[in-house]
């Protein structure tokens, strides 16, 4: 039962990364691809009706993690106290900058929120990547089942690492470029004119950086976390996840060269899902590796009681079917390119 819930949480996080990933990426490139007020409203309109619902996947995944693996939730959230709080602040800034921008039209109001939206999205991409890096590297858990990481120590992978070390920063940069690529493809899919052209160009340029960083991070990850190689050796079928990521990378190149935005975007989604699931598969059955492997949290030692997990399987499936229905309807309702009035109605 614990393994099933492990897979479901991984699935929810993957959906979160694919969905909120594009609106985070769109935010990170906001100032780069949209120059005029009209162009910036195009970018905002491309995510306006959906970003909030996308973010709910984070909350739903968090809640699911909470009841299915309470030990992991307690240990991980208190250990990553500082970066999580910073993530919360960034989510607050980002949410308000999207929501409040259009209430007033002024040359001091708009650029302020545009900047905040862009900066907070940019930093969120880096922090989410760094968080994943921390999980792969392992955290300084001890016999009490707890740990606390300061934001940084000496940037090395020692016994007392900080949230930011050379490896997690590298993963953060990979996450940033991969989500920028993802977001640029979404924006090009939803817009027209100069915004679309700039986004396509950016996605093309980004591809090489993503390729380069993927190579380095993959190499470093296998060195730092031996469990990944061990698990791929013992269960070779797991190779489908890295294969999905590689296929996604190739697909992006192929489709983007032909300006097929929808195919590029889906390929990018395959890449992100493939990368994330490779990591999750690699560390399994650990859910939070420790620097000292004896103290690692595993599915077995962090799951909740079996009755709760069984009964939740029923309502969870029901709820997710409903949610999928809402999402399909909302995305369908707002399908197609966004149209922005040249002169805003004030």
């Amino acid at each position, binding site marked *: 039962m614990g393994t099933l819930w492990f897979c479901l949480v991984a699935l929810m996080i993957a959906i979160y990364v694919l969905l909120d990933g594009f609106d985070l990426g769109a935010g990170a490139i906001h100032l780069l691809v949209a120059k005029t007020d009209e162009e910036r409203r195009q970018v905002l309109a491309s995510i306006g009706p959906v970003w909030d619902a996308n973010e709910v996947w984070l909350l739903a995944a968090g809640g699911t993690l909470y009841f299915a693996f309470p030990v992991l*939730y307690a240990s991980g959230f208190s250990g990553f106290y500082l970066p999580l709080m910073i993530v*919360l*602040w960034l*989510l607050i800034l980002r949410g308000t900058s999207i*929501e409040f921008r259009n209430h007033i039209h002024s040359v001091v109001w708009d650029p302020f929120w545009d900047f905040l939206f862009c900066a907070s999205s940019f930093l969120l991409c880096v922090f989410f990547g760094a968080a994943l890096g921390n999980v792969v590297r392992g955290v300084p858990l001890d016999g009490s089942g707890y740990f606390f990481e300061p934001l940084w120590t000496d940037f090395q992978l020692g016994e007392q690492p900080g949230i930011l070390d050379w490896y997690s920063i590298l993963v953060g940069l990979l996450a940033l470029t991969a989500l920028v690529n993802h977001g640029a493809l979404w924006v090009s899919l939803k817009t027209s004119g100069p915004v679309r052209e700039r986004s396509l160009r950016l996605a093309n340029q980004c591809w090489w950086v993503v390729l380069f960083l993927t190579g380095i991070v993959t190499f470093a990850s296998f060195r730092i976390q031996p469990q990944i190689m061990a698990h791929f050796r013992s269960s070779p079928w797991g190779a489908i996840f890295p294969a999905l990521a590689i296929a996604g990378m190739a697909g992006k190149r192929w489709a983007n060269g032909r300006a097929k935005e929808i195919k590029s975007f889906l390929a990018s989604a395959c890449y992100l899902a493939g990368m994330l699931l490779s990591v999750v598969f690699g560390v399994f059955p650990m859910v939070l590796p420790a620097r000292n492997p004896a103290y690692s949290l595993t599915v077995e030692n962090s799951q909740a009681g079996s009755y709760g997990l069984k009964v939740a399987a029923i309502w969870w499936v029901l709820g997710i079917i409903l949610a999928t229905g809402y999402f399909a309807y909302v995305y369908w309702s707002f399908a197609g390119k966004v*149209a922005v009035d040249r002169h805003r109605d004030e």
Partner: protein
Amino acid sequence: MEHAVDVHRLHFAFTVTFHYIFPQLTMGLALLLVYLKTKALRTGDEHYNRAARFWAKIFGINFAMGVVTGIPMEFQFGTNWAEFSKSAGGVIGQTLAMEGVFSFFLESSFLGLFLFGEKKLGRIGHWLAAFLVWLGSWLSGYFIVATDAWMQHPVAYHTVANGRIELASFWGLLLNEWALWQYAHTMLGAVQTGCFVMAAVGAFYLLTDRDEAYGRTFVKAGVLVGIVAALLQLFPTGDMQGKLVAAHQPVTLAAMEGLFETHEGAPLAILGQPDVEHRRLDNPLEIPRMLSFLTYQHWKANVKGLADFPEELWPDRIEMVYYSYHIMVGLGTIFIAVMGFAVVQFWRGELFTSRWMLWLLMLSVPLPYIANTAGWITAEVGRQPWLIYGLMRTAHGSSPRVSAGNAWFTLIGFMGMYSVLAILWLFLTWREIELGPEHTGHVPEPGEATAYD
């Protein structure tokens, strides 16, 4: 030397108090929006659609504030209260996850459609979107109240060897008696906030001789729904809450009432300042035997005072419990009076021209916020010294590795950020009221309005 747990308590108290400013309005307004959309559907009068569009704007601002300040709440269970989460996560994680899965998806999906999709959805479709936003927000309220109710009155669990608390009955958790009454009481409080805000804006328009048709609609809706909510707030929901507290948290009841000594035929204190050190109420203004009657329907019933309980079971801030409870009840009584008078005037056809009543309605707008907040303080500080009543003490629930210094760092961060947000929220809400319903009378579309405009 300061205990980290005190900082963690302040951290949660500050962030949740600020957060609840917004849901209490949006949950109340969601119901009133359904009312306005229903009127529009049944009468075919565009006036009600315009009124709904105006309130949708205010709703949008407050909803956004509620979303961004709500996310930190779920996170804090893990970040600041790790020992609690480790023990009880298998139980309360269920209701918190259900909130995400069943209400947030519903709410966030259909709010986008409600705000931007009016043209596309048609009249019935748009009514349905409003209805689903209401349903989502009220479901969300239920899951949160059920979570709190379990901490107030834990049921449907069993404790296993390592001290972990496991769920024993799903329906037992969801249909906790405490949750049902607390939910009804909480939602009525939210409806009153919505009603007072709507009536206050209407009164403002009538007093300033502008948008008078809207002013009348808003005052009428606020007052007629408001009186029902105000009455139900007192009875049966408030009454039943009190009886549950008397049955399961008798020491909390004594603190709420400022009752130090045990009495047969205990009096109800209307005024008086508790002096905990000397165990007495200064200059008390009391109704003799009333507390016994209200609690047990018997004038001579025995009500236990604080003196009958060991001090380590007393809530650690008795003054706070006492004052917040008295403020809540006092304001609740005032709401019945204000709304009651307004309804009488409405029947006589005098309400819309009665300037003193319009002034009163306009100036009352902060009061329901204070009453709702005071109610929550009564419940949560009254629950002390327990985090889970009778099962886990608050002192044992916080995160062992998060120091007071780190907790202060993030608390100060939240205080700074929320101060700025509060100013923006007041500014933007005021601006929408100032622009008025005619200004927002057109149908918004996503291209024109990029955000929840």
